[in-house]
């Protein structure tokens, strides 16, 4: 491979570091109306009356919209393929407000000050209702988060609003209860992980205007331009053909922007006033008015033989989806579906999960997407099993985990459209990941712990994880290639680069297939008018799904070039050779450079534009795998846990760009460390979000993470583009369970509720001390 598996720098890198004006707010028209949103101060209330008359008179105010001004249409904001697996439970503005921060009124003014002034004097008379704040008490709670008649689910997902249930999922293989009865050892535990905020540096923002054809143009910081187009069409009641969505450079997403959030408000204002409009979410609005990782709790029951063979896994999960059910089904489903297949040798396993409505900020997509939470639960339970059996946790994995070439019926059950034939994990490199990880962290020297001083002790712990690569038979990607005069190609893709570098790696794949150098590929992406359909940047799909679509388009292009080369040389296609640079008639030895050829067929002969479109939808479930190893130091006097070192070894198949792949691992590990030790979305007893700034919500700083060492397993997945799988999300998953096991190995204290903040660890240490004295 000449271009793939090479560490090119990102093609947009230079422009970004020079501070070029390429983000949404840099591009917005200077005269755009500024849109602000009045948000609910109550967790659950009904608007009895809302009076905007005085506010509308403030100079500079163009319009103020309340639920009375907007056609009532239920929809879902979730960025998913249609028909969505999320309930249609959201209205642009509603009579009910269902969480602190829920939208109440939209204000548009010529400048921010006027909008804020107006906002302060909008009179709202609320009937305050009792909020549902504990997701474990939501079922049967006297308050219904969704009392309205017209919310519904497009697809049967177990939606039952009378019980505050957004969805329910099930998975069952074999006879769990029988297998548990036959087990020598049972581990029965409950684990929970907290809501986590994506905290990308660029908040949600969008601007809109009407172009000269009367179409609504939406420029937005999004991961899902095509879904946004459809969602806006549904919510605004205008045809998709009247909407164009463009994603410029964006400052990260991590799943936050896989839900449509900001786009509705400027769109409505533009439609109403005819003027350009812009909204830029403040950081506080992001915390309160968008979404965060679903908090989840799992009851895990493991049954195993005394020599470490896991016979059965029973998993019951509950998820807090907050006020709206975006991504509720898919995350709680993934928590079981993309974790249980790791243990393919069990006789039986069973998973029940459900997502509950509460009057809190809605759950959404965040890197890992339910698999993170499920992995924390299962891997923690298996680490506890290892302790119970006095076995090394890597040994327990070795006995039970899926290995190269193996399969499990679970893969059939969780892969749409695959049917009954076995699905072999031909490219699974978990064994290597574990052995390499052990070597890198010096596991044998350090396991289980090393006493540093009277008050400080270090421990090591590990966990494994998988994710998926795209969504088989659900999400597809398309790309178009066109040959330009002078022999360079335009690569038009719907695929969304969040800063991850997808523009670059997809160009690498195109260049490799076409046989040209990388600089011959000009990329344009994420414009619903100009680029073909792509589901968007989620489900770790871009490399695998869009990558294969690129290969499809490029292979078609090579054929097309040869076909027209044959015409050019007046011969048959079998006589044509194309090596990326020249088209050659092997019979006569005549040749023409691609550059000359492209001019020739455009200006002089044939008069044809060569352009191909490739599409791809995954068929096979193709998980990336990872083994994560943590070394922590615990201060026994304060409970403070510091990560000394974290080693991550990832099997992503062929890394299209090893440099960028490694940065993905380093970044994902840091997010995992945040989940394990520092970050927590917190509410007060009235449902008000307390962590709505970066002073209260602590994203790890560069002094908080210790040494991070990453390595790529050299795998190859034959269904992947040049052997690639995915990497974006798996890299978060094993971190928290590895850290909590390291804490246990260091101190004997088991944290089953994230995050492992110092006070929590301290209290457990104290309890342990007291117990040992009794």
């Amino acid at each position, binding site marked *: 491979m000449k271009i793939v598996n090479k*560490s090119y*720098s*990102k093609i*947009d*890198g*230079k*422009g*970004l*570091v*020079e*501070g*070029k*004006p390429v*983000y949404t*707010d*840099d591009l917005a028209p200077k005269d755009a109306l500024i849109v602000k949103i009045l948000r609910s101060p109550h967790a659950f209330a009904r608007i009895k009356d809302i009076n905007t008359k005085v506010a509308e008179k403030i100079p500079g105010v163009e319009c103020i919209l309340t639920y009375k001004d907007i056609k009532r249409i239920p929809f879902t904001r979730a960025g998913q393929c249609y028909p969505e697996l999320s309930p249609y439970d959201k209205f642009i503005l509603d009579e009910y407000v269902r969480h602190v921060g829920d939208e109440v009124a939209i204000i548009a003014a010529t400048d921010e*000050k006027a909008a804020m002034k107006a906002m302060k004097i909008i009179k709202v008379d609320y009937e305050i209702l009792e909020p549902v704040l504990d997701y474990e008490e939501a079922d049967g709670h006297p308050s219904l988060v969704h009392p309205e008649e017209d919310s519904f689910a497009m697809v049967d997902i177990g939606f039952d609003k009378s019980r505050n249930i957004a969805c329910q999922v099930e998975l069952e293989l074999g006879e769990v209860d029988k297998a548990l009865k036959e087990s020598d050892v049972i581990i029965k535990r409950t684990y929970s992980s907290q809501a986590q905020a*994506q*905290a*990308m*540096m*660029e*908040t949600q923002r969008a601007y809109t205007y009407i172009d000269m054809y009367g179409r609504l143009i939406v420029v937005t910081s999004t991961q899902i331009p095509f879904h946004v187009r459809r969602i806006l069409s549904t919510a605004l009641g205008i045809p998709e053909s009247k909407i164009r969505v463009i994603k410029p*450079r*964006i*400052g*990260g997403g*991590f799943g936050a922007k896989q839900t449509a959030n900001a786009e509705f408000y400027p769109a409505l204002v533009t439609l109403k006033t005819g003027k350009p409009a812009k909204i*830029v979410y*403040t*950081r*506080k609005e992001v915390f309160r008015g968008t979404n965060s990782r679903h908090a989840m709790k799992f009851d895990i029951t493991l049954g195993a033989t005394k020599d470490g063979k896991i016979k059965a896994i029973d998993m019951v999960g509950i998820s807090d989806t907050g006020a709206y059910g975006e991504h509720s089904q898919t995350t709680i489903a993934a928590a079981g579906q993309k974790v249980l297949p790791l243990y393919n040798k069990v006789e039986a396993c069973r998973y029940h999960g459900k997502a509950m409505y509460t009057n809190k900020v809605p759950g959404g997509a965040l890197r890992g997407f339910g698999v993170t939470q499920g992995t924390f639960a299962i891997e923690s339970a298996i680490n506890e099993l290892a302790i119970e059996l006095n076995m090394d946790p890597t040994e327990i994995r070795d006995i039970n985990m899926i290995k190269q070439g193996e399969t499990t019926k679970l893969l059939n059950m969780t892969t749409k459209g695959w049917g009954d034939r076995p699905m072999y994990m031909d490219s699974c490199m978990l064994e290597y990941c574990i052995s390499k990880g052990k070597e890198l962290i010096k596991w044998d020297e350090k396991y289980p712990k090393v006493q540093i001083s009277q008050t400080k002790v270090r421990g090591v712990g590990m966990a494994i994880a998988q994710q998926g690569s795209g969504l088989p038979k659900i999400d597809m990607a398309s790309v178009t290639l066109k040959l330009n005069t002078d022999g360079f190609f335009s690569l038009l893709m719907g695929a969304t680069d*969040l*800063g*991850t*570098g997808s523009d670059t790696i997809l160009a690498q794949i195109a260049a490799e297939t076409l046989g040209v150098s990388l600089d011959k590929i000009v990329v344009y992406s994420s414009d619903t008018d100009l680029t073909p359909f792509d589901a968007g940047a989620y489900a770790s799909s871009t490399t695998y799904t869009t990558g294969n679509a690129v290969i499809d388009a490029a292979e078609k292009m090579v054929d097309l070039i040869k076909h027209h080369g044959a015409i050019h040389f007046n011969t048959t296609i079998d006589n044509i050779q194309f090596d990326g640079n020249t088209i050659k008639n092997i019979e006569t030895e005549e040749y023409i450079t691609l550059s000359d050829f492209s001019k020739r067929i455009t200006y002089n002969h044939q008069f044809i534009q060569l352009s191909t479109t490739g599409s791809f939808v995954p068929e096979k479930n193709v998980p990336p795998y990872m083994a994560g190893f943590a070394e922590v130091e615990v201060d026994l006097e304060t409970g403070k846990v510091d990560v000394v070192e974290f080693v991550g070894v990832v099997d992503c198949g062929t890394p299209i*760009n090893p*440099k*960028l792949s*490694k*940065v993905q*691992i*380093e*970044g*994902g*590990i*840091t*997010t995992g460390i945040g989940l394990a030790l520092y970050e927590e979305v917190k509410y007060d007893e009235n449902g008000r979000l307390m962590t709505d*700034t*970066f*002073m209260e919500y602590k*994203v790890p*700083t*560069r*002094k908080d*993470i210790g*040494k*991070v060492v990453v390595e790529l397993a050299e795998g190859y997945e034959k269904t992947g583009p040049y052997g690639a799988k995915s990497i974006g999300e798996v890299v978060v998953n094993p971190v928290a369970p590895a850290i909590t096991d390291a804490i246990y190995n260091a101190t004997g204290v088991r944290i089953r509720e994230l995050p492992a903040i110092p006070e929590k660890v301290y209290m457990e240490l104290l309890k342990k001390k007291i117990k040992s004295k009794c």
Partner: protein
Amino acid sequence: MKIEMKVNGQNKQFDISPDEYLVDTLRNNGYTSVKKGCDTGVCGCCTVHMDGKAILSCVILSAKAAGHEITTIEGVKEEAKKVGEYLVEEGVEQCGYCSTGLIMNILYMEKHIKEPSDEEILHYLSGNLCRCTGYTGQLRAIKKYLEARKNENSK
């Protein structure tokens, strides 16, 4: 109110509101390289120099900055380009949103402390958050940059 300040060496006049922050004044006047990432002065995306010191333009009122010298990345193009090259080479510019603020702080750190240790680098830059890269690669890039500068200067 009308104020004057020097921005990137040029004398500038701005018509501002007394409660307007420097980041907004700069962005509204074409210095879009300065980014806003939070509202509590924690993320560092808005970092610029005032009289040569790294500060947060989202915390400093424009009225306070009046009469001072402000430097944004547009004003230190050549130096910033050099740092930027090292970040791009390591693949740690990622979404790029934290990059300009980070580069401004790196340039400040470079003037302030000779041959910083890893710990010192992390300490100086701890006010620049990044959610994409996990920081590790950025440290690699910065060390390579500082090493290259050291070699340049010793020639």
